[in-house]
């Protein structure tokens, strides 16, 4: 790995993050929205690891470890919420759960 990897990885990470954001803002299916959130988290992980390698510091990778743990926790809870919502509304489409419409 040489110095080109730094820039390339950062670019990939930025693009993946933005793709994830686009997905979150666009899709209607709540589960797919969650998956795009995971995609964003992965992009951030890539950035962190890249910097950790190029700054010669292990703490970046430890941070990634923590991010993954949080992502796992969040996925568990989020999917549980989706299940609840499904039980009450019989749908996972976010447009139909517009109870707070004003």
């Amino acid at each position, binding site marked *: 790995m040489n110095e080109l990897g730094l820039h390339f990885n950062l670019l990939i990470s930025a693009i993946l993050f933005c793709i994830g*954001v686009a997905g*979150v*803002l*666009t899709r*209607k299916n*709540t589960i797919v*929205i969650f998956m795009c959130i995971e995609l964003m988290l992965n992009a951030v992980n890539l950035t962190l690891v890249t910097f950790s390698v190029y700054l010669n510091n292990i703490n970046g990778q430890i941070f990634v470890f923590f991010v993954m743990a949080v992502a796992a926790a969040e996925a568990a809870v989020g999917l549980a919420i989706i299940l609840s919502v499904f039980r009450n509304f019989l749908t996972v489409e*976010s*447009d139909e*759960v*517009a*109870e*707070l*419409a*004003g």
Partner: protein
Amino acid sequence: MFSIFKDLILSLPLSSSLTQSEVVLPVGEISNSPLVDSRLLFLPLIPLVGALLSYLVGGKPKVEDDHHSDHDHGSSHDSHAHHGSHDSYKSGMSLSAIVATTASSLSFVLTLLLFTALGSGVSDSIVASAWSWIDAGDLNVDFKFRFDHLSAVMCLVITGIGSLIHLYASGYMAEDPHQPRFFAYLNLFLSAMLILVLGDNLLLTFVGWEGVGLCSYLLIGFWFKEMDNAKAGQKAFIVNRIGDAGFLLGMFTLFYYTGSLSPSDILAKVHNMPALAIEVAAILLLIGAAGKSAQIPLYIWLPDAMAGPTPVSALIHAATMVTSGVYMVARLAGLFSAAPHALLLVSIIGTLTAFIAATIALVQNDIKKVLAYSTVSQLGFMFMAIGAGAYSVGLYHVVTHAFFKALLFMAAGSVIVGCHHEQDMRKFGGLFKYMKFTGISYIAGTYAISGLPYGSGFFSKDSVLWATYSSTGLASTIEVSNGIFLNQALWGVGILTAALTAFYMTRSLFLTFFGTYRGHGTPHETSFNMVFPLLVLSVPSLIFSFLYGDTLLTYLAHWTRSDFLGGHHALLENHTYHQLETISMWVALISAGLSGLIYTFAKGLPAKISSLLSPIYKLLLGKWYVDELYNLVIVLPLRGISRVFFILFDRILIDGLLVTGSSVVVDVAGTTLKKIHSGTMKSSLSLMFSLFVFIILFWVIL
């Protein structure tokens, strides 16, 4: 025909016997210390209180038949049909008339008292200060009145003739249900005019100036239910206002260069002002005077002002308001003497006004219009005198003109009322046997105005003409053609105008009072209230100048040119003057006689001449199409521009864009922003993300 005149003029010695040093134009300030007398404060106050009281008191005399009480005198051209025999030949005065006349008489009495105090006292002027009005930095204006020789003359004329006209109006308006308003306005006018004349400060004079303009508007449009009357009032006010703008700018210029608006201060500092500033200030002030005193180009309101009641015409447009321009110039005499170009302009405009108005008066058929144009013409004479630097001569003509013009207007009003509100002279004729007193008065007035020998108009007009002929201002340096200078050319036009004046006034006399009656019904003499002032005014119209002309000029010595101070007999010793006087006397006699002869024996001749010279006749009858010209050049473009602005700014911009647009914006914004509240997760996420991006953006940028 003109060659005769030319030879006459050429044969006269051109170099007058007066050298430069003898003709001294008055400059300098009002001299010695004034007397303080607070009775002066009551002088404008009495008519003001009178106005209020006469409005509140109101009422008509109880002798009237009630079923006529609701007939408004809707138009001054009322048809004769519905008035029958109930015209005002009863001498009951309504309560408001009594109050108003008493108020103006009281102010006349007070003027006499102050006049005698001035005559016997040690000082030139009486002052009285009411309060300190403006105290702002450099501008210190007091509400202060000054009664000096100039104001005294003007006040005597105003209050004296004013009181007579109030008496006259009580008869003229006896059938009008709106008398309280009328007399209130009349007294208000009197008060404003007195403030104008007595004001010791140009700003205070301007208050009176505007006040008389306002009252003129109110009184001209008194019978406002007729659209034409309202329009005439509006025209008077607007044209006056244009002049007022000039007056204000002149005041600003004077204040800028002298730091004061008081005539005494200004005249003391005139030497320090740059010459251009003096000229500019003078011309601006003269624009104001031209608006008030109906000179070219702002005279157009005066003939239309005949839509008002005749007492109004007599008071305002004969004796008082229109002379305020002359008064203002005389008050600032030192300033104008230092502005020779302005004086030249004044002479030219005065002469032109006099001539053009006289030509228009020649062909008018409405008796009031004849008198209106003759007023404009005589005002032109006054301005001729001013332009020659002889301010007191202008005032002399003011005084005599007040007498005979007020007389003529009142007599005309009497004729109109006596002929059941008919104003067209073609329907008059032979009225002398019906209305002897009115007839006598009208003859006296015509005699005076035509400048027939030894009437009051004779002396004053001759003084004006002599002042023009012998002026030493710029007019005497401009050569018109070989050997003739401008002032002599102006004299020539003045003589021609005098001839025309005599001609058309005699024409109106003969058409009205002699011959056979061409109208409907039976004319009758009018009430005592109306006839008495006529007879009273006939006397000074005939003999004032003979008795008191020289006294007046000496009284106004400060404003008089030195060659007039010796009196008429001293002037007569000047050979040139004697010749000119003889010429003017014969000119007046011949043209008056000619007019009398034509209109008695050769009644078809005028019609033949007018059809022969029909383009000229059309021009004169159409008043030189000045109104139409103004309409085309000023009014229509202004209307067009305002219409453009109306549509562009008012409709499109303000109504459309701003008013409707703002509501549309709110509506659209609301409808769009409503979608944020869709309640979906997506919208809240989008909002959150976009705000986050904004924050990052600002963080990066700043």
